[in-house]
């Protein structure tokens, strides 16, 4: 039993990754929009698991909060708002689907061929580091949230602030777009 748990723990990433792939495939393939959203939710949770397995604890939590807590709810709201039964879905997939899938698969294969050395080559992980002046008094490996925040607010403050403006613009834009037009 312990051996099994240990094996699971060691292969956490692989497990979450495969589950995410499955959920994503379900999402793309399912006919109902609600099912798609559920698949999407599950894929996001799995990806959060992958983040955790990669020792990005803060991002894993953020992933759950933002996607599972925010975006998925938003999608569900819109699915409810848009009465899917009102218009008859003629077909789930495009007419070009076959070509598209073929092209993507060919592309993916070729891509994997080209980058096989990177993808299948042997690399070893390294410990996270911060610039010494930022890392002062911090155990970078254990205190992931603090490490990310120090890096973010020291080196990427401007992108961060710009992001806040973009969010504001998106907010206003969304309000304007979705607003009922008054005649």
């Amino acid at each position, binding site marked *: 039993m312990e051996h099994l748990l240990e094996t699971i723990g060691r292969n956490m990433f692989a497990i979450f990754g495969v589950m995410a792939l499955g959920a994503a495939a379900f999402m793309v393939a399912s006919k109902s929009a609600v099912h798609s959203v559920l698949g999407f939710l599950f894929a996001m949770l799995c990806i959060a698991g992958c983040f955790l397995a990669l020792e990005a604890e803060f991002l894993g939590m953020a992933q759950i909060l933002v996607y599972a807590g925010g975006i998925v709810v938003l999608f569900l709201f819109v699915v409810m708002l848009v009465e899917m039964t009102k218009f008859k879905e003629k077909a789930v997939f*495009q007419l*070009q689907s076959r*070509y*598209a899938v073929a*092209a*993507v698969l060919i*592309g993916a294969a*070729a*891509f994997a061929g*080209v980058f096989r050395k990177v993808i299948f080559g042997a690399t070893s992980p390294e410990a996270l580091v911060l610039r010494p002046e930022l890392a002062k008094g911090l155990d970078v490996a254990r205190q992931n949230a603090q490490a990310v925040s120090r890096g973010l607010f020291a080196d990427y403050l401007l992108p961060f602030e710009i992001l806040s403006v973009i969010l504001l613009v998106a907010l206003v834009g969304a309000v304007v777009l979705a607003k009922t037009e008054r005649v």
Partner: protein
Amino acid sequence: MTTIMTADMTQMHAAVTAASQPASYLWLIPFLPLFGFLLNGLTGRKLKSTKIVDAIALGSVGISFLLTLYYFVQLLGLPAEGRSLHQSLWIWFDIGGAQVLGGLTTAKFEWAYKFDALSAAMALLVTGASFLIHLFSTGYMAEERNDGRYYRFMAYLNLFVFSMLNLVLGANILMMFLGWEGVGLCSYLLIGFYFEKEFAAVAGKKAFVTNRIGDFGFMIGFFLIFQVFGSLDYDTLMGSVREVANMPHITLYGHTASPTWWFNLIGCCLFVGAMGKSAQIPLYVWLPDAMAGPTPVSALIHAATMVTSGLYMIARMNFIYVNAPMALAVVLAFGSLTAFVAATMGLAQYDIKKVLAYSTVSQLGFMFMGMGAGAFGAGMFHVFTHAFFKASLFLGSGAVIAACHHEQDMRNMGGLRKYMPITFASMGFATLAINGIAPFSGFFSKDEILWKVFEGWYQHGHYTGPTLNLVAWILGMLGAFCTAFYMTRLIAMTFFGEYRGAGHDPHGLTVPSEAHGHDDHGHQDDHGPADHDQAHAQTAHAPAAPDDHASHGHGPAEVSWRMWLPVAILAGLAVVGGFLNYPESLHRIFPIVPADLFGKWIEPLLYQVAPVHHGEHTPPLIEYGLMIFANIWAGAAIFLAWWIYKVDPTWSRAKAFVARFPNLFRWVNAKYYVDEFYEAALIAPIKRFSAQLWSFDTWVVDGMVNGAARVTLIWAALMNWVDEYLVDGAVDLVEYIVQETSTVFRSLQTGRVQHYAFVMFIGFLVFAFWKFLA
């Protein structure tokens, strides 16, 4: 040497400004009238009641006056040497670097105001007189209240006050120049106020063009000042003039000469400007014509304020003139000549405003005489006393004109003493003042000027001064005699005898009325039915007697308080104003008021070549002698005029004189044909030359142009053919090809987003393989 000098200048500038106190509301004095102008000018047409226009115009000038008074009182509390307030609003413009005598300078011209003894006195005069004249206008312009241009008049007046205050309060020559041009513009606008009358429009143009000639001189003058001093700021100029005057020589434009030579040139150039603005020979011709404007305008602009700006400028620039003896001599010569010639012109005029106009020119000549004799204080003092009595006379004449149904010819007046006692009393006192009878104000100021001129020749009993001073003095005395004569004549013809306006004319003195030609407010029927103009009836046409009414509409009557009050106030000032500059010599005998108040007031602003000694030297006996003589002299002139025009109501002596010397009278009456001379000698040749240029233009230039046009036409026809068949053909071909090809590519545009995304993805793949597989 050059850089050192500039450095010294800046230091000195700093030192001078340090002595000057900042004043934070100084800007309101000129800007309030500007706000009034903007408010009235932009909204006046829309306002329901002209009372609001009155409130804005009078209010802005009134508050401005009170503010001036406030700062004046503040100035009184300061020590004599530091009597200066200033406010710098912003840098007007910055010319970067300029090559001047003192090396390269970075001149910044500030929009700054300076309130010192001289500008304070002028500002008081301008705001005070303007307020009274605004008040007068509310009565005088009553008719315009109904035809929608009243607001325009008031707005122009306010704009004028703004410009004039800029002129006197500006802290540098550029600010003065701004005001200088501004008052010129306002003068043009106001003279041509009745622009639908051709003579008014022409008079406005004449004033403007004549002034431009003067302005040209003024501009050259201050350009030279900038070249020599590297600054236009009064304080800086005052601070560095001694240094410049002591330089061995000055080289400008490749010409090397002594500083005095350059100062003479600058002084003469500036004086040309003053000639234009202050109506001196030979540029005085616009002023009499300017009487085409409404009478309050004549009083405000052409008697009390604008025409004195030339004097103010010379007083301001005294540090130049003190170092420029030639320029001073020129000023003295032209001033005395003007004083005399204009006075003789006034002798034979019948139009009441024309008499006053020539009188103004003549009095301005007196002021310039004072300046030319180096007595800047005396000259400036005459500016003030003259403003009092001449504004009073002008406004009085306006009242008379209004009362006589816009009649301006004195032959058609007479006997008004009975109808308008207040106006008569005011104008009477003002006349005594201008005649130079002690102790009215004109006596003190004019006598001071004449004495200074005489003293220049007298030289403490040595009689060694320049002959010019003696000649100027004689011309001045003759001018004074003429002044007393024509002013008494004016009073006698207007106020004494019988009223000749209502068809009552026992001696055959009246002439066909020209009332409709001049300043007639544009209304066509003075003697029409009583009900035709209510506003008019309230002010001027109040019925005098029932029988008059029956036969001839209305007789003259006293005007409303809005009109007589300013006249009376100004006359009151004309009576007592002289004591502000009570001469030292009289003070010794009758010490009733402190001596030389005005002279001492502006003394700190005057440049002294050598330190002044207020030595206790006894005034020479001849000074007293001349004072007494001046009174007798004026009295004789008054008596003569009285004898000719009052004692004999038929004016037979005057007629006999005219009959005896017909040519002399004709010449004087026609103002020596100066206008005609200008017309023949200057204007006609210019016109002829222009006509020749025009014919050159028609035949040669136009011919060339037309020829070019023909060639162009032929060429264009050729080009048209090429265009139509070759160029258009090529274009059509391209269009055809594009159209055919595009039908093929059109089918790719399905309008579906995912097709585009798919194509994009393929493109991306192609790009990626090309990039990484190659």
